[in-house]
């Protein structure tokens, strides 16, 4: 009687599993990997200095967090990320929009952007260090420089993607240049700009840790784990990586996904 159709293409997915089951399902792979790690660490194959068991890493993480060392490193990293990204967003969006609106600006700037973009950001690092000296300035400047490329590129594409028919109809309805910009061009290009910002922030995050290692900044997670190498403190490195992962996950969950939702929703509106 209650035999349900095996109409795989019509019947929708079975009712979503309970939140508890889902949590268990997500935790399971970590339990497996953690167990393997523990087994290897306790087997004595490697010296504990190089391959500390998870409880040591957890203890180090707790100790460094309590003493305020880890929060200080994390805070400096986050401040650099925000500063660099904010600069990139400001200049990137402006340059991109100008390129999209003015043929002259496009002709002038596009070659420079196309030459600069394929060079990996970190390759500029020594140059920046040489020109600006070690410290915060080259780190922030490089983060800004590198993450500006996707922002410029996407803003430019976005403005170019604004349909002529919208511009014409707005003009026909008497919109002047300023209104055209505010009410047609910016909203029309927004999905692309948001995508650019998302890519830019992800790029900034990926190279920031590397720059911190190279730029010899006094605080920062990259420097923390790089410095720990000198003293063979593997537990400190892994604790640092855990914090890096947490920040990265938070960015993913609270920033990238939000931005993506925004874009997807906008896309739906536009197409």
């Amino acid at each position: 009687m209650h035999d349900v159709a095996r109409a795989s293409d019509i019947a929708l997915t079975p009712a979503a599993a309970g939140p508890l089951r889902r949590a268990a399902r997500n935790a399971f792979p970590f339990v497996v990997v953690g167990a393997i790690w523990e087994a290897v660490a306790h087997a004595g194959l490697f010296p504990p200095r190089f391959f500390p068991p998870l409880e040591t890493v957890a203890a180090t993480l707790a100790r460094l967090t309590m003493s305020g060392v880890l929060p200080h490193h994390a805070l400096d990293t986050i401040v650099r990320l925000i500063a660099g990204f904010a600069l990139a967003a400001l200049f990137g969006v402006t340059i991109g929009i100008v390129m999209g609106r003015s043929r002259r600006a496009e002709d002038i700037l596009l070659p420079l952007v196309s030459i600069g973009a394929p060079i990996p950001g970190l390759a500029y690092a020594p140059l920046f260090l040489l020109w600006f000296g070690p410290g915060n300035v080259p780190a922030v400047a490089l983060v800004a420089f590198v993450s500006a490329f996707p922002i410029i590129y996407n803003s430019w594409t976005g403005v170019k993607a604004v349909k002529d028919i919208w511009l014409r109809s707005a003009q026909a309805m008497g919109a002047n240049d300023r209104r055209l910009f505010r009410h047609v061009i910016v909203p029309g290009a927004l999905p692309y700009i948001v995508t650019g910002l998302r890519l830019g922030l992800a790029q900034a995050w990926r190279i920031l840790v590397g720059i911190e290692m190279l730029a010899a900044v006094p605080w920062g997670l990259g420097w923390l784990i790089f410095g720990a190498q000198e003293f063979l403190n593997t537990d400190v490195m892994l604790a640092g990586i855990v914090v890096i992962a947490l920040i990265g996950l938070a960015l993913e969950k609270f920033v990238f996904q939000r931005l993506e939702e925004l874009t997807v929703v906008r896309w739906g509106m536009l197409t």
Partner: protein
Amino acid sequence: MPHIEARDISLIYDTPGGAVPGLRGVSFAMEASEFLCIVGPSGCGKSTLLNIIAGFITPNVGEIRIAGQPVRGSGMDRGVVFQDFAQLFPWRTALGNVAFGLEMKGVPKAEREATALEQLRLVKLEHFAKSYPHHLSGGMQQRVAIARALAYNPAVLLMDEPFAALDALTRDDMQRLLADVWRTTRKTVIYVTHNVAEAVYLADRVVVMTPHPGTVKTEVTIKLPRPRDPLSVEFLDYQKELLRLLGQDAKGH
């Protein structure tokens, strides 16, 4: 023995809102080389019925028998043409698409390409053998799909509104072409449509379905000589009758 027999087919959709009856007690039988059209308003389950015959969906109750054998899953005794132009593989040329079924059968390359080319000739596309689907118009893509479904020589051709997304002029051409193809190949064809004129033009017999849940309302045999003249009085009479059968039903609800 009938070539295809549907015995008391029922299907219940399992939706988030609960079980919804899709088809109830659908039965019909058809002879070999017969052209059967299934017409009905959208949502009457006619496409679902075709998918059951194709073996993509298993009904809750009842069974389909083809040449006396119950249907279990899809099989090479049936060729299927869908409405969606996207059914062709975009990474294969027209010829590559048509040859796919033969390739699955293990037919050697030269032989299957020769057969595929023959099938393309049947639908008048032999000059487009090397074209990729995205270079072909919608009507041409559907013709390739028909050639593809015929290429491995199934006894049955199942067609799910294959011309519904085409413009009216192209559709007329395609119907004429399909009637020719059928006369040449003598396949047993089940053709789902909501277009009454199309059904009268193509079918030996029309099964009329009603929705909620989908059931067979009646069957109409089209006793017109072929090729049929869509402007003849008899043609229009059949059309009116089918429209009446469908329309009455709508008023009845």
